[in-house]
Every structure is written in structure tokens, then in C-alpha cells.
């Protein structure tokens, strides 16, 4: 087990290095002015430009720039925007709201998605199965910003079931945005659970369990589900990337004061330092979450960690 975790950690290093290198390259070394779009609609002032060039060592060779940038990232320094505010600080005061939103979305995804998938899987080919397949297909086809806009109109304005926008970020106000955020992933989780369950139900050990005379509840609930839910766990980790992209959209629509809204406002104010700093932070969080899920996968499925 220890060896597996160590190997995972080592494999992560080139990916993190590569991803940050790629982002840094895209950000600073593509042809064009590196300062374009970093100071709103006006060109940057010479003082800020000089400070920016010094901060990112833009006069040095690329490799030196990158290594120094990496050093800053390790210290949690995501840059300073042209208002003179530290991006890391801006994120630090906003992340609790976004975490709450993500927890609502993931809970929704895990509970509703898995339940729907199980129902569809054990009644393969029946009405409920078709219902789940068609409804998930529809949810997969609707981009999050459409789900957001329409449900804000329908449930917020017309029916009045939920607050229309979020003010202080209480649980009640975050509920609808959280459900909207999870709507795409819940569909994928349901489909994955269904496919995985259907495949496992055909396995020999399930036939043995049935032949022993175990009840359906036990065969499905204990024997099959344990194995079927493994890919779903991995998917929930991978869905984190979709959730973070979706959070930018959802927080914008419902005016939730979290990291996503900060990114959206920075985009519309053309504050490039904040956009890139915040997104880099999200990418690193995503990589770490997936590392944890990978390790968890090794714990849940001993076959993975013993090869």
C-alpha cells in the first residue's frame, strides 16, 4: 500500500510540473504583449508594467522565469493584480462559499446519481431504466448556464421555491445553485452506476450468490454494489474539474460571492492576473483532489495497489 501511494505521488510530479509549465507558457510566451488585457480596458501604466515585468522576471530566459514562478506558487503567491491586491488573499476570503456549493453539488451527485443508477441497473430494459437513460441524456445535453438561467426563472421567480440570488451565502440560498451545479455530473454518475451495475450483475460471483439462495437485496446491495461503485468513486473525483468550471457559471448567475464569481468578474474587468492566478489555483486543487481519489481507489480496490 505504501509503495502504491509513493508511486502515485511520484507520478503526480511530472503532471503538475507539465501542467504549470503549459499554463505559464500559454500565459507569457505566446506571441503578443504579455500585458494585454491585464489592466482593464486601458493600457497598463508604465509603473505597473515595470512592476509586472520584474515580478514575473520577463527579461530573464524562459526557464528562469518558469522556475521562479514555480517557487512563488509553492509559497502560495498567485500574483498581484493592478489594484495592488493579492490574488491568493482574494481567493482565501471567498473559498468557504465555493466549498459549501461544491459539497452540495457532490452530495447531490453521489446520492441522487447513484440511486437513479441502481434503480435503472436492476430494472434494465424496464420503464424506469428508459426514464433514467432519457432524462440523463437530456441533462447531459443542457449546458450548466442554461440549467442555471432556466431554473432561476422557474424555481426562483415563477414558483418562488428558492431565493433568486444568494446574498450572504447561507445554506438555503446555496441550495438551488448547488443543485444546478451538480446537474450535469449527476447524470453522468447515474449512467456510470447503471453501466457498471449491469456489467457486474452478469459476473460469475453474482450468479453464485444467487444460486446459494441469497435474497436479491443481498446479492445486489452487498455483493454487486461494492464492486460497481468503484468507477463511480473515480468519476466523482474527475467530475471535480467540471464542477469548478461550472462554479464560475453558476456563481455568476446566482450572484454567489465565491471563487467562481471572482473569476467571472475578473474576466469582465479584464483583470488577467486575477483570472490566471485563480484558475491556476483551481487546476492545482483539481490535481490534488484526483491524487487523493486515486489513492482512495487503491484502498477500496486492493487489486489496483498490488500490481
Amino acid at each position, binding site marked *: 500500500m505504501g509503495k502504491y501511494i509513493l508511486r502515485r505521488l511520484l507520478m503526480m510530479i511530472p*503532471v503538475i510540473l507539465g501542467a504549470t509549465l503549459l499554463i505559464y507558457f500559454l500565459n507569457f510566451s505566446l506571441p503578443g504583449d504579455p500585458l494585454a488585457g491585464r489592466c482593464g480596458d486601458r493600457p497598463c501604466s508604465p509603473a505597473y508594467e515595470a512592476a509586472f515585468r520584474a515580478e514575473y522576471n520577463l527579461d530573464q530566459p524562459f526557464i528562469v522565469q518558469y522556475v521562479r514562478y514555480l517557487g512563488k506558487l509553492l509559497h502560495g503567491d498567485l500574483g498581484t493584480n493592478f489594484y495592488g491586491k493579492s490574488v491568493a488573499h482574494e481567493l482565501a476570503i471567498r473559498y468557504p462559499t465555493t466549498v459549501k456549493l461544491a459539497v452540495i453539488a457532490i452530495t447531490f451527485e453521489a446520492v441522487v446519481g447513484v440511486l437513479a443508477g441502481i434503480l435503472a441497473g436492476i430494472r434494465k430494459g424496464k420503464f424506469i431504466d428508459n426514464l433514467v437513460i432519457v432524462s440523463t441524456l437530456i441533462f447531459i445535453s443542457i449546458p450548466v448556464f442554461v440549467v442555471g438561467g432556466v431554473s432561476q426563472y422557474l424555481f426562483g421567480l415563477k414558483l418562488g421555491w428558492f431565493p433568486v440570488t444568494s446574498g450572504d451565502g447561507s445554506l438555503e440560498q446555496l441550495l438551488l445553485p448547488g443543485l444546478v451545479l451538480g446537474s450535469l455530473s449527476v447524470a453522468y454518475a447515474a449512467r456510470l452506476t447503471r453501466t457498471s451495475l449491469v456489467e457486474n450483475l452478469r459476473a460469475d460471483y453474482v450468479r453464485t450468490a444467487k444460486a446459494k439462495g441469497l435474497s436479491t437485496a443481498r446479492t445486489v446491495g452487498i455483493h454487486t454494489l461494492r464492486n460497481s461503485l468503484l468507477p463511480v468513486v473515480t468519476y466523482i473525483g474527475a467530475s471535480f474539474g467540471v464542477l*469548478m468550471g461550472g462554479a464560475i457559471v453558476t456563481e455568476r448567475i446566482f450572484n454567489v460571492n465565491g471563487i467562481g464569481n471572482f473569476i467571472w468578474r475578473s474576466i469582465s474587468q479584464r483583470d488577467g492576473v486575477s483570472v490566471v492566478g485563480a484558475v491556476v489555483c483551481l487546476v492545482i486543487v483539481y490535481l490534488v483532489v484526483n491524487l487523493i481519489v486515486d489513492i482512495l481507489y487503491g484502498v477500496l480496490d486492493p487489486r489496483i495497489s498490488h500490481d
Partner: protein
Amino acid sequence: MTETPTTIPAPVPPPHPESVGVPYPTLRVKDTAPKARSLWGDAWDIMRSRPLFWIALALMLLFVVMAAFPQLFTSKDPRSCFLINSRQPPSWGAIFGYDFQGCDIYARTIYGARASILVGTLTATVTAIFGSILGTLAAYFGGWVDMLISRIADVFFAIPLLLGGIIIMYSIPTAPDSPYLFVVFKVVFALSILGWPAIFRLMRSSVLQTKPNDYVQAARALGSSPLHVVGSHILPNSMAPVIVVSTIDLGGYIAAEATLSFLGIGLQAPTISWGIAISHASALGYIRQAPHMLMFPAAFLCLTVLSFIMLGEVVRDALDPKLR
């Protein structure tokens, strides 16, 4: 062989085991024997009996025609707008109503198809070609080539599509007067650079499965060049999953483009696109007063995405014998 759909290249069927060395006995026997069936021939038989396939195909063709010839659907100019009509609800004169600027929403929705279809099709094509070539190279040659390409793909794969898209779109600045195609290509570039590893992985594993087959070994033993082995034996038998996933992804890329435009960094006004229209319409005041501004472009966007995903899934179900 049964007829194959025109959009999909007909693969060379794997040779019948008996046909290697032993010729078919006589022509007469062959005539009475059941028809030789290929993977795509079987799939076509299954697909054409499913109504979902025809619905998806019809919707898809409708949107493609709409993107190519918007004039067929509306005689109105989407750019001729009168503020006096601002936010008018649907009526007989304008069946989808008017937006904030007093533009006809029906005309703008029809003309908006072009951006979405163009970005979706181009991105899916670029990722399919690029991913397939690299995937085939990695799987066919193995060793350090495979190692190198796979590790590079891991890096690109690790960056979520939307987050990476935001950074790339931000890094290539667009002036307000940039030509239409430049902005479209920029979005295609951003989505392709993050989308190719998925196709690469798929193609790599698909070629790895095809490579050990006898007919491939035979072709190599007979001294065929690698190009010929790959071109006439490996590719036709390993392209199926890539075609399916690319069709499904095409829908996803259309959604991603609309999301980027919605956030204000994809296509920019004055370009007409569904993402921009939905973005303008989802300001809270407009949702309250003029929900039709949001509903119509959103419905078209969802139907387009749905048609591609549905088509891809029907083809996948037909190709996958396990699901039968």
C-alpha cells in the same frame, strides 16, 4: 455487404478465418451462404430500425443546413434592429420576439447556428485527426515513442476543459475588429489543445487491441510497409470508437464554446452566437421581464447538443455487441 451510411467510412471487414489459404469452394455455394456481414453493416441494420437514430440525424442535418444557409429559414436581417421593439414578447410578426436591442430573436437564433456548428465540427475533426495519428503512432511503435506521447498527453489531460480554455482564450488577445474566423479558430485551438488526449488514449488502446490480430501479423510478415499495414488493416478496424466518441464530444464542444461565450471570453459581440445571446439574456432584470430572450436561443443550443450526443450514443449502442 450491406450498404453503409455515407457519412461513415466503410471499414474493410476482417477476413474470414477460412479465407486465409483456403479459397471458397465454388461460386454457387458462396451464393447460397448467408451474406458476409461487417461490423458497420450489422450496426447499420440495428440503427435504421431505431427511431432515435432518425430523429437525431434529422435534427443534426437541420442544424447543419441552418448553419450553412441561414437565408433559407428567415428573410430578416439579424443585424437590423430597432430599439422601439426592445424586449417585445413573441408575436405573429416576430415569432420569438425581440431582444434588448430590438433585434428579431428568431433571425438571430437562426444565424447563431453557424458559430456553434463551425466550432463544434472543427474541434471534433481536429481532435479526432490529431488524437488518432498520435494514438496510432504510440500504439504501433510502442517503446519510448509511446512513453513520450503518453506522458505529454497526461499533462494536457490533467487540465479541465473549461479552466484551461479560459487561460488560453485569455492569452491570445482579440481586438474588437478581429475577423470572424480568427475568433472561431481561437476557440477551436483552445478546445482542441485540451481535447485531443481523450481521443489519443482511446485510439491507442483500440490500436493495441487490433495489432495482435492475425491479419495484421500476416500483412507484416508479407513485408507490407508500416504505412500500408496501418492504413489498410489497422485503421479501418480501430476507428469505430473514435468516430463514436468524436460525435458525442462534438456536442460537448458546442456546449463548451457557448459557455466560453457566455462568460465573455469566447466569441464576442457583434458576432451572433447562442452563447452570447444567452449571456445577454440572463441578466436578472431581463429574465424577469423578457424570459423569451433566454428560452429560444437556449432551446436551440440544447437541441443541437442533444442531436449530436444522441446520434453518437445510438451508433455506439449499435456497434457494441456487449449491450445487445
